[in-house]
């Protein structure tokens, strides 16, 4: 996971901090989620997320607390969908996550479980009205 953390750090550099819509524009996306936040990025959004319990482990159900941050002048997010799969094995989870709004651009996804070691991808579909934009993040599991 150290590579992943390095990536998260790289994503947190100043250009992404210029979030016109976020009230606390001085903070990186998801700073309020607490320690151990990771990030996925699409062209117009950053999705910061934090697993609970952390870290994600094979065979252990977990939830994700997430915050969606529009970059530059991207439209405000109106919803979030969360799913995950193993690209090499060509299969998804055996569970369908449910996502509830936690106020503002914050969400909580529940019911995830990674049932194998290997490379997983968490897929975030950010909804903004009728538009959907995808942010993907690799999660290598031992």
């Amino acid at each position, binding site marked *: 996971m150290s590579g992943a953390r390095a990536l998260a750090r790289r994503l947190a550099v100043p250009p992404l901090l210029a979030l016109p819509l976020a009230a606390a524009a001085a903070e990186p996306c998801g700073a309020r989620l607490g320690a151990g936040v990771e990030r996925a990025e699409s062209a117009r959004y950053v999705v910061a997320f934090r697993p609970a319990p952390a870290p994600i482990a094979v065979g252990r*159900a977990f939830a994700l607390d997430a915050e969606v941050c529009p970059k530059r002048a991207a439209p405000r997010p109106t919803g979030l969908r969360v799913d995950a799969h193993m690209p090499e*094995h060509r299969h998804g989870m055996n569970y369908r996550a449910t996502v509830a709004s936690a106020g503002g651009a914050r969400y909580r996804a529940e019911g995830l479980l990674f049932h194998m070691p290997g490379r997983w991808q968490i897929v975030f579909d950010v909804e903004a009205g009728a538009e959907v934009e995808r942010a993907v993040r690799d999660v290598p599991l031992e």
Partner: protein
Amino acid sequence: MRSGAFARAGAPLLAAAMLAFAPPAGATGLTGPEVRRVLQHGPWPQPVLRDPSNRASGQPDAIALGRRLFFDRRLALDGALSCAACHVPGRAFTDGRARARGRALLDRNTPSVLNVGLARWFGWDGAADSLWLQSVKPIVHPLELAADAAHVARLIRADPALACRYERAFGAARLAGADAEALLVDAGKALAAFLETLVTGRTPFDEFRDALARGDAAAAAAYPAAARRGLALFVGRGNCSFCHFGPAFTNGEFADVGVPYFVAPGRVDPGRHGGIRQLLADPRNLLGPYSDDASGAAASRTRHVALEHRNFGEFKVPGLREVARTAPYMHDGRLATLRDVVRHYSELDEDRLHADGERILRPLRLTPQESEDLVAFLESLSARAPARVIPPAGAPDECTTAEAAR
């Protein structure tokens, strides 16, 4: 949940072993990543955590009641069958048959109930989301004990030893006044509390695994070379530990490994697909009123389980501890020996796997030597002496003698 213990347990040991075995230790013949995989199959035993959906879980009187019920033929409507008639203690809690025989031939093989307290789903198709639901099912199944709630409630109330344990575990008011369905579910919870105590012992593999974790090459050398080569295949080229993952050698989920699922000409076993449908329609599932978990957290898996077309023909990944003692194998017992199982994976019929099937399964085309090695490894997952469970049936119960002495 319980599986959490798996994840937590591995981490510190992992770090230690990586130090001890980087670069790859020639002495074990395992590469660094293989060593890490091996360590994840322990430590053993794992703690069985209390089941939050079962208030009787871990409770001594409930365990004693469950033990009595497990061996008691009177639980069957006609008194002909007990749980132990199929889950025979001397046979690692299986029956040695390909398919179980109750009042008629059933569709599936009797799985062992050893280590079942570590599982997340129960039955080959996971149609039960709790160990207590899985324990109620055979009581009322028309081809198994064929009893009903009224029969079970009558039995518990009429038998001094059962009534005494029940009263201590669940309360006098319930014994006197609860409806029969409540007593049936309580019986399931007591059986579950007993089953949670059935944990397999330490094996030659565990000694090797712990020696690796300690970096103790001398102790590791006691593990037979054939088993070690088989283990390398298991965690390496064979991809076995993707599914047979963790200390219990199962990820607790479901897969299609190309075992045919025709039960009879024209009739198939739908496996996990049918299991999910049955579960969601079951009033005794964790979403229903019988769960003791007020937080609702235990039911999360039931709320989120996804029904997919690919679940058709998927079966639960069986744990492999004591596997040498649980023949025959697979959900319908079609494979008689571990050699047959290894041949199955070696010659895997790819046409039989779903088109979108998991790519980790390919025919392994093992040499005869490799096949023998894999069998030697699987045999090293058994304790030298099997666990002994003595049926209490007929013996006086400490509960009643204590009451009498008052």
